[in-house]
């Protein structure tokens, strides 16, 4: 199945994300910073795992990405990571390749959205 990255466009809901953090904006900023640091590392780890045929490692990183993104209700990223996790579980490296590309595109879009999220804080 060919997936178009556009179907995974994030539309982050700042209010509901903040509600899950009990309105703690500082915490939101901190978590976003953590994600900005962690996401490229996870992507890197997934590329390497895929290259080395380490499906277990790939699945673990995809699972982490899914968990990390779910904290921001970034469902596009969650779904893409989830798809990749499934591919890894099924040891379907062809599908995994495509899923990883999708995930990279989605995460690429997510990062600036998350940064905006922090700057939007009402004064």
């Amino acid at each position, binding site marked *: 199945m060919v997936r178009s990255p556009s179907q995974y466009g994030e539309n982050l809901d700042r209010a509901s994300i903040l509600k899950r953090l*009990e309105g703690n904006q500082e915490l939101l900023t901190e*978590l976003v910073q953590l994600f900005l640091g*962690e996401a490229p590392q996870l992507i890197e780890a997934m590329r390497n795992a895929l290259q080395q045929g380490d499906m277990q490692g790939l699945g*673990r990183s995809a699972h982490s990405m899914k*968990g*990390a993104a779910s904290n921001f209700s970034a469902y596009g990223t969650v779904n893409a990571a989830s798809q990749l996790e499934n591919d890894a579980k099924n040891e379907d490296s062809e599908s995994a390749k495509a899923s990883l590309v999708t995930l990279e595109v989605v995460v690429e879009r997510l990062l600036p959205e998350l940064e905006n999220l922090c700057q939007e804080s009402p004064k």
Partner: protein
Amino acid sequence: MKVLVADDELISRRKLQALLTTWGYEVVSVEDGNAAFELLKAPNAPRIGLLDWVMPGKNGVDVCRAIRRDRPEPYTYMLLLTAKDAKENIVEGLESGADDYLIKPWDPDELRARLRTGQRILQLEDRLVEARETMRFKATHDHLTFLLNRGAIVDLLERELVRTFREKGCTIVMLSDLDHFKNVNDTYGHLVGDEVLQETARRLLGSVRSYDFVGRYGGEEFLMVLNNCDTSQAMLRAEELRKAVENRPIQTSRGPLSATMSIGVLSSRDWDHRKAAEILCEVDAALYRAKASGRNRSELARPNAPCNAL
């Protein structure tokens, strides 16, 4: 209250830690199941565990199973936090020993409420354990002297005899009886008699080592079980106990009263392995000889014909 957070994913872990801290919990966080398991079974472990399901090492469900198997008490309240939302996952999670199950992304109000439920259950558990320990104490101790009661000290003697026989060690058994105690009761009343018994108990306990045992065997009879003894020392030890009662008058509400005690002494090394009942019969015979020879003395039981007075 201390809470353990186990999640291999950094952001989820940090989020939990931050919120839990805001709610007044003391948080310990780890990145994998093995570390979670080690911490939860350590002394002074967190009583509540928030466990991610998918983790390196032991996963959350493995941790639940292992804790239920290896750490029955004090109870650990474990809550699985996971993205796995299929009914069979929930069932498997709960059957592994988790107390609760929350699907990610969780709502903070709900998590907070569920943690309060956990705390409530732990408090109930603690009260129950405390009540059980109180009952256990009452069931095994004499209510007047707080020494082990007859049932408990005889059980203990039975176990010690088996153990020391197996380890080729020895047990000293002493049965003592306050001399002319009936006179105290008759002259001063039972309340004063009780005071004499309480003080005697204190002195006996104060004269043995921390790993020896003293029990109230009957009205004014006390049974002592001493461990790892040197046979040749048995009579010396008995004399120490006897003098502990004789040396100073006992202060009672009716003034100081002198008391003395007769003791039958037996060292298990002088005997083959015998049941507690036989040993007690022999040591009772020695006590009787101490009484018959003028009281306020110790007599050593000697191996002779098996005791028939059972």
